[in-house]
């Protein structure tokens, strides 16, 4: 339902240039889910505490529930849907699969994006550094241990890929 208040914005989502007409108050997470049709990013709370909505915006993770769509104008967003290359999973996704790093899967996209940022900045994180990096992502199912295992495994496999 377009109104006079709608703003015209353009941004890249997972490498694809998209244009939208949005209310200024539309949250980025709603743009991604309801308008752009990318429902992999989830909403778990209303106080930006859970991290389920974590995406990358211009190279850094943000909680998309606390970013307005208009703030992302002209920017580049990476969501969980943009991690795999066609059939080929990202090593982090593969590691989560191998290590049983998810149960219900609801926190998983946000968790993977946080891990993605960690491993970009720190290719050899300690267990403590991993736990700290995902401290903004709540999981109620796993107790975090297999998630930590997954990030450790991803770090190893990404490092060996980088070398090879």
């Amino acid at each position, binding site marked *: 339902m377009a109104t006079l208040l709608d703003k015209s914005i353009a941004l890249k989502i997972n490498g694809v240039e998209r244009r939208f007409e949005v209310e200024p108050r539309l949250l980025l997470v709603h743009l991604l889910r309801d308008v752009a049709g990318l429902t992999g990013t989830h909403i778990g709370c209303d106080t930006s505490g859970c991290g389920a909505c974590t995406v990358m915006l211009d190279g850094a993770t943000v909680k998309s529930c606390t970013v307005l769509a208009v703030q992302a104008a002209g920017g580049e967003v990476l969501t969980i*849907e943009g991690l795999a290359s066609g059939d080929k999973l990202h090593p982090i996704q593969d590691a989560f699969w191998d290590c049983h790093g998810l149960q219900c899967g609801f926190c*998983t996209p946000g968790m993977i994006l946080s891990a993605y940022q960690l491993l970009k900045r720190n290719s050899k994180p300690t267990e403590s550094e991993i736990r700290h990096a995902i401290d903004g992502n*709540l999981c109620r*199912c796993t*107790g975090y241990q297999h998630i930590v295992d997954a990030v450790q495994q991803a770090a190893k496999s990404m490092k060996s890929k980088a070398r090879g």
Partner: protein
Amino acid sequence: MPVSKLVGAKVRRREDPSLIRGLGEYVDDVKLPGMLHATILRSPHAHARIKSIEVSAARQLAGVVAVFIGAELTDQIGTIPTTADNPTLRIPKHYVLAADKVCYVGEGVAVVVAENRYIARDALDLIEVDYEPLPVVADAEKALTAGSPVIHAEWPDNVAFSWQQEQGDVAKAFKQADKVVAQRLVHQRLAPNAIEPRGVLARYLADANQLTVWSSTQIPHLLKTHLAQMLKLPEAHVRVIAPEVGGGFGSKLNVYAEEALLGYIAIKLEQPVKWIEERRENFQATIHGRGQVGQVEAAVKKDGTLLGLRYKVVADIGAYHQLFTPAIPPFTGLMLSGCYKIPAIGIELRAAFTNKMSTDAYRGAGRPEATYVIERLMDRVAKELNIDPVKLRQKNFLKPSEFPFKTATGLVYDSGNYQGALAKALKLAGYEKLRREQKRLRGRGRYLGIGVSTYVEICAMGPGFWEYGRVEVTADGKVNVYSGASPHGQGQKTSFAQIVADQLAVQLDDINVIHGDTASVAKGMGTFGSRATAVGGIAVYQAAAKVLEQARELAAHILEVDGDDLLFSDGRFSVKGVPRQGLTVQQIARQARAARNLPANLSPDLAADSTFEPSNFTFPFGTHICVVEIDAQTGRPEIQKYIAVDDCGKVINPLLVDGQVQGGIVQGLGQALYEEVVYDDNGQLITGSLMDYALPRAADLPRLKLARTETPTLVNPLGIKGIGEAGTIGSTPAIVSAVIDALTPFGVSHIDMPLTPQKIWRLCQTSKTSALRGRR
């Protein structure tokens, strides 16, 4: 059963490929053409009469399609159901939207339906409600006191139900006791907080009179039955779909107002309508767990022998019942005997109405409370009698030779080896070394604590709680497995496939496990009480066994031999002595379709269903050991080490079992150290968001060390007990025990949960010995 290849193996989950790509479809991901959005106006008062509701401004907002209020719906939608067979049970009328008065903060009073969720949210602000506040009672013990505000006029004593049970001569036990040890224990309310909030999408097709409801639920079939009743539709015209469900932990084992309300709206408007819960609504209007205050007393001999136990408890129900609200507190009573031989047990339970949200099942559902009570009591007894807490437990343990054992609470434990689990845990923890370390550190003014919790629990339910399974081998060689279980993270799409793959000798990838849709699965109960594999898995196993028998008979017909001449080996039915000319189950399915002259008892396909009703609960058990160090200057407890030895009988997939135990332990840790739902005296919910309610985070814990013993249950042919809740049940007492043990130099014998740093710090400050200990 043929030699297992997949059962017991660490198989990667079949669920994961879509979930790790963000392709899993949860309720809010389902979009239908013409879909509208609903929001609910909720009461800001804990107890108030609704004098008037003015909705005309909301109705007139552009984009708003409809607004409904409670008074319009009392004769349109049935009341929210509860189940129990307690003759003392009082059931207040629980409407989907409050009509005359509200009884808890968050109770819904109106619903707005609009073109999008933003407009729906805007419209809520335009509704004016004139409330007349009424006196509030938020404390369960206060509610049962004479002179308390009355919540439901029919029952001025605020008693929701009561329950007593006594077996053995309790009075005599206490007369004969050398000592009586008493302790008051508080089990705080908890908010389950599945990371996916609740959500409902309803669509009604008028020409077919067909209602479809997508709900983030643990019980699609049970929900279907109740919705049909509440909306006066034939059951055959209601379909419930549990899509991907983002966690439940008991909070989605229910029939909620919104589920019936959205069904009604979809029928009335003939347009699909969706409601997605916000996290603050989840805190207000999704069930809470626990909520008990009790006094436990043990009658003991000088040497530590338990003679008897008495537990007098008040359960905090909330203003209304939800589906299993009255059933949860009695579970506590059933499990009070724990791992021990206690000849006489008496329980007196009173359940109180309060101006709060309902309590109901949350991971463990009554059993964490029981284990906490008995394990705290054992520690207190150990202290009073100056006996080592481990030795006290060993002295009173049931011995393996004493099973099956009838407890003084009316249960029959089928099997157990508590000594084995305890010994394993003590060894893994290096218990003796830890006690020496504790002594050494105390000498240096450092406070290390060791907590041991030995637990047994009941799960998978028993008679009356059947589950359904169906197995089909299609003519193109695929296997479809249908289950009435409704997993939401537990991984049965994988574990059930493992079971059937081994039984029918088919590849895992050829098996598809289907659950969650009442149109695809004929019947079921759902996933709760750690029963998906222990009951649902058995139904699937039995169905697959029937399919194998059918396959044998069809193979006999196809090969023109007698069924008894066939051997099933290496995945083929072949004539004994002629192994090379065999048929796989898949080949049989294909050939069956073209078969001729079939005898009357055979049909041209391979399919069978089965229902399994367990004859008894199963009894998982184990020992958890927690080591904690307290920083006396900040009160912060830091977990140094955590060992869990759990026995869930036979294990289908170790990865999945570890995951359940780890997740369960961390929820137990949450109860022990962080979590509490707090209402003030006016019934205002103080912990209304994740800013005030602390959930465990990754940086809060060390690595958990897990191990298992395997003592099969006799209740089902696979010896599977269930593991979903055991971690939560065993952990809370171990962690609390460790902290209290650490504070022994401060003269602390008990602290109520959650053991926050502030509570701990205060105890360290006020203790007489703190001056002697000095600063670190």
